[in-house]
C-alpha cells in the first residue's frame, strides 16, 4: 500500500484507480488546482528547477526523494499513513468503538467544517508568500520557501481528497471554494484572520513559519487523534512535512538573531539606530515581530470557552495534542481547566469544565512548545555574550478572540487603560517604521553560497548538500 502508482495522473497510495467516480472528480479538480497554482503560487518562478523533496511513499525511505523539479510539475499526490485495522476511537463518548472508515452521518457537518477550515489555511499561506521569492536572502532560503509552498499545496490535496471521497457533492463544492477564496481578498477572503494578513518580508515569513505553522502542527496533531480514521491517517503524514516548515522558521529567526549579535559585537553597541545603519535587524524589532506573530497566532485556537470544541471532542472528531499519550479517562466529563478571565480590572484564573476549554488546552500546549524554541534563540544571544533576552508575550496580550479580546494588557500581563496601551503600543508591536526598515533590507541575493547581510548562513545545507549548493536553477 505504501508505494505510489505514478502511472496514474494523480500519484496516490489509496488505490484511486479502483474508485472511478472519485478519480474522475479529482481529475476534474486537478486542472483547476494547477490554474490556481499558476495564478496564485510563487510569482515568476514557474520555470525554475528547484531542488525539492518529493514524497514517493509514506515509509521513512520513500518520502524524502530529492531532485530538481519545476514547481508546476511537482507530483502533488494523496498519501495516507498505513491503516491500523485495530485502531479505535480513543476519546469522547465513542471511546473504545472501532475507528470509523466512513463519515458517521450525525457528525458529517462538523467534520466537513473541520476539514474545510484546515484545508483553507493551506492555499492561503501559499498566497500570502507568493511574492517572497523576489526578495530571497539566499538561494538556500529561496529553495526552502518553495519547499514550504509545494508542501502546503500537497496538504490542500490531502484535504480535498477527504472532501471528495467522503462528502459527495457538498465536498466537491467545498473543494472548488478552496480555490476561489483568496488571502486578503475583500470580497472572498480566507476563513481565518491570520491567513488574510500579509507576509511582506522574510522576517515575517520566518516568524509565520515558526509560530503560525506551529499552530498547524498542533491542529494536525489534534486531528491525527480523530476517530475518523482517514482524517487521522492523512494528518499524520502531513505532520512529517510540517516539521520542515517549522525548521525553516526556527532556523530562519535564529540566523537573523545570530547575524545581529555578530554585528553588535563587531560594533560593540546595542544601539538600534547604529545597528540599523549597519544593515541588521535590532533585537528590539525582532521582539516586536515576535509579539505580533505570537498573539495573532494564538487567536487561531479559537475562543477559550467553546461548545464546539466540546462537541468535536466528545463526538470523537478532534482530540487533544498527544491524546493517546495522556493518562486520564479521555472523556473529561468531571475534569476542569483554568482559563483567564477579567475580574475587577484584573486578570484572574477561573475554573471551567475542561470539555468547554479544549481550545485553551491546545493553546497552552502550543505556548509551551513555542517557548522552547524562543529559549533556543536566547541561547544564540547568550552565546554571543549579550544580555538581551527574547520573551513570548503574555497570553492576554493583543488578543482579538475570546474573553481576552477587547481588553488592554501589556506583554508582561498588566491590564491597563486603552489610552495607556495605545501610547505604548509602538514599544510592543512592529511600527510602520519597523516594517519599512525591514522591508528596506529585502533585496534579492541568489548566487549560490551568498547571503544577505542581515542573516547568517545556516550551519548545514539541505539533504547533506553543501550550503553553497545550487538549490535553484534559473532557466
Amino acid at each position: 500500500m505504501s508505494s505510489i502508482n505514478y502511472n496514474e495522473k494523480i500519484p496516490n497510495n489509496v488505490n484511486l484507480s479502483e474508485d472511478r467516480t472519485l478519480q474522475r472528480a479529482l481529475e476534474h479538480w486537478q486542472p483547476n488546482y494547477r490554474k490556481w497554482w499558476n495564478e496564485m503560487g510563487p510569482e515568476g518562478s514557474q520555470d525554475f528547477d528547484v531542488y525539492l523533496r518529493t514524497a514517493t511513499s509514506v515509509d521513512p525511505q520513500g518520502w524524502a526523494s530529492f531532485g530538481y523539479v519545476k514547481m508546476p510539475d511537482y507530483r502533488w499526490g494523496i498519501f495516507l499513513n498505513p491503516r491500523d485495522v485495530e485502531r479505535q476511537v480513543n476519546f469522547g463518548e465513542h471511546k473504545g468503538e472501532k475507528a470509523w472508515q466512513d463519515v458517521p452521518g450525525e457528525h458529517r457537518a462538523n467534520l466537513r467544517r473541520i476539514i474545510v477550515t484546515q484545508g483553507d489555511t493551506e492555499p492561503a499561506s501559499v498566497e500570502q508568500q507568493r511574492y517572497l521569492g523576489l526578495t530571497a536572502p539566499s538561494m538556500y532560503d529561496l529553495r526552502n520557501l518553495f519547499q514550504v509552498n509545494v508542501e502546503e499545496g500537497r496538504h490542500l490535496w490531502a484535504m480535498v481528497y477527504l472532501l471528495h471521497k467522503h462528502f459527495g457533492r457538498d465536498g466537491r463544492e467545498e473543494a472548488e471554494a478552496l480555490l476561489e477564496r483568496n488571502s486578503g481578498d475583500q470580497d472572498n477572503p480566507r476563513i481565518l484572520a491570520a491567513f488574510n494578513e500579509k507576509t511582506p518580508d522574510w522576517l515575517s515569513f520566518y516568524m509565520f513559519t515558526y509560530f503560525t505553522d506551529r499552530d498547524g502542527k498542533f491542529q494536525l496533531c489534534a486531528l491525527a487523534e480523530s476517530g475518523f480514521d482517514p482524517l487521522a491517517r492523512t494528518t499524520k503524514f502531513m505532520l512529517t512535512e510540517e516539521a520542515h516548515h517549522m525548521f525553516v522558521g526556527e532556523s530562519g529567526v535564529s540566523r537573523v538573531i545570530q547575524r545581529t549579535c555578530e554585528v553588535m559585537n563587531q560594533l560593540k553597541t546595542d544601539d538600534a539606530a547604529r545597528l540599523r545603519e549597519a544593515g541588521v535587524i535590532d533585537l528590539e524589532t525582532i521582539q516586536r515581530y515576535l509579539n505580533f506573530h505570537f498573539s495573532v497566532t494564538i487567536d487561531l485556537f479559537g475562543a477559550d470557552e467553546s461548545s464546539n470544541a466540546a462537541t468535536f471532542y466528545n463526538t470523537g472528531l478532534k482530540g487533544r495534542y498527544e491524546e493517546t499519550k495522556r493518562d486520564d479517562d479521555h472523556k473529561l466529563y468531571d475534569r476542569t481547566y483554568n482559563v483567564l478571565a477579567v475580574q475587577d480590572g484584573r486578570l484572574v484564573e477561573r475554573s471551567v469544565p475542561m470539555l468547554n476549554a479544549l481550545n485553551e488546552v491546545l493553546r497552552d500546549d502550543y505556548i509551551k512548545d513555542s517557548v522552547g524554541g524562543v529559549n533556543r534563540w536566547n541561547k544564540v544571544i547568550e552565546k554571543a555574550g549579550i544580555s538581551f533576552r527574547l520573551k513570548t508575550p503574555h497570553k492576554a496580550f493583543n488578543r482579538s478572540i475570546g474573553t481576552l479580546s477587547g481588553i488592554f494588557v501589556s506583554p508582561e500581563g498588566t491590564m491597563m487603560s486603552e489610552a495607556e496601551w495605545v501610547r505604548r503600543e509602538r514599544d510592543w508591536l512592529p511600527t510602520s517604521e519597523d516594517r519599512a526598515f525591514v522591508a528596506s533590507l529585502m533585496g534579492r541575493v541568489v548566487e549560490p553560497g551568498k547571503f544577505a547581510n542581515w542573516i547568517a548562513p545556516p550551519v548545514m545545507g539541505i539533504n547533506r548538500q553543501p550550503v553553497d549548493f545550487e538549490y535553484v536553477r534559473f532557466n
Partner: protein
Amino acid sequence: MATIEQAQVIKKQHLIDPEICIRCNTCEETCPIDAITHDGTNYVVKPDVCNHCMACVAPCPTGAIDNWQPVHAEKMYSIDEQYTWDELPAPLALDVPDTPAVADAGTTDVNTEADAEVTIQGSNYVAGSQIPPWSASHSYTNLYGTRNVVTATVSGNYRLTDDASDSDIRHVVLDFGDAPFPVLEGQSIGIIPPGTDAGERLHHARQYSLASPRDGERPRYNNVSITVKRVVQDYDGNAVKGVCSNYVCDLQKGDKVQVIGPFGHTFLMPNHPGANIIMICTGTGSAPMRAMTERRRRKHLEGQGDARGKLMLFFGARCKEELPYFGPLNKLPKDFIDINFAFSRTPGQPKKYVQDVMRERLPDLLALLKDEDTYIYVCGVKGMESGVLDVLQEAATAGGMVWPELHATLRQKGRLHLETY
C-alpha cells in the same frame, strides 16, 4: 552484525545535535524500535536500543539527527546525560585518526564491523541503494573481526601506475592459505597495520575494496587482490604519511598481514543473464569495477549467458600515467566493454571529469537507464557523487523520465550503488 563487547572497542554512538534540532518529534515518530525519546529540553537516542537502521535520518528536517560520534563501547552517553546538553560534546580526541584516513584513497577508516556499517550506510544513505540486486549472490560478512583476525600472506605487489608518475598505486595480492575467506566482487576487507600510534593504541583497520573476482585473483586459489594508493599528502596538500597505505605499498612477497572482513552486502553485482552494468569510478575506486569486469570476462570466455548484458565504464584519473589498470583495460574487446576515460590533468588538453565524459554519452546512458536490467555502480572520491547523479538526472529528464521517481526506483530495486570516500 557481530557484537562488540571488549572494553577497548570503539563504537559510533548515534546522537542528536541539540543546537540544530527543532524538537519536531518526527524522529521519535519514525523510529521503528522506539530508540528515540525526549524530555522538556532534548530529543535523545537510547544507546542500548538504537540499531543504526537509519530510518530516522531522511525524515529529519534539520539534519540534527545525523551525528555519529566515536565512543568507548562501555562509556556511551546515557540518555540522562544527553538530556543535559546544550550542544554536542566535542568528539573524543582519542578516536580521531592520526593520519587523515579519508585521504587514504580507496579506503575508509574502520575500527570495527559496526563502524564499517555506519560509515558505509551513513555516507550513502540518501542517494544509493541499501539492498543488493535481486540476482546478487549471497555475501558472507564479518567472518573475521578485531577479536579473531585472519592472517594472509602477500603473494605479489605490483606497481600499477607509470614509473614516471608521482602517484604510486599498487596491486597487492593476498593469499589466505587454508583459512576460509569467501568473497564477492564489490566487497572489501580491512587491514590492520602493525604497531601502535603515538597514543600507544593499536592502529585501527583501514578498508580496501577487492579488485579480484570471487574465484580469486588467480582462479581457483584462495587469494584476493586489492588496489592501494600510497598516501603522501592530505587533502590540503600537506605532507602526511598514510600509516596503512604506506605499510601495504611496502609489503614484500611472503610478508604476513592481519586482515578482518569481508565487509559489504549491498554493493554487489547482478548475476542474471542480460544484466547491464554501468561503472563509474575514479582512481582506486576502480578496484570493484576491475573485479566485476574480470568476473564478466571470465564468464565471457566460458561462453556463459549473463555476458550478454552490456558493460559501460567511466573511469577518471589525473592523467593516463596515473590510471591503474590502463594497459589491461585497453586490451579488452570493444564489444565486451564500452570504456570511457576522463583525464583531468593532461597537458595541453582541457580538464575532463567523469561527469563530462558521461555527458558526451548521454543518449547511450539514457538507453541503458530505460532498461530495468541496468545496474549502476559508483566508487571514488566523495566529490564525484553529486556530479554523477546530476548527469544521470539529465539523462533521465532528457528521456522524459521523472528523476525523483526513477531515482527512488533505482534505490528500491538495488540498482544504484555508491561507495565514495
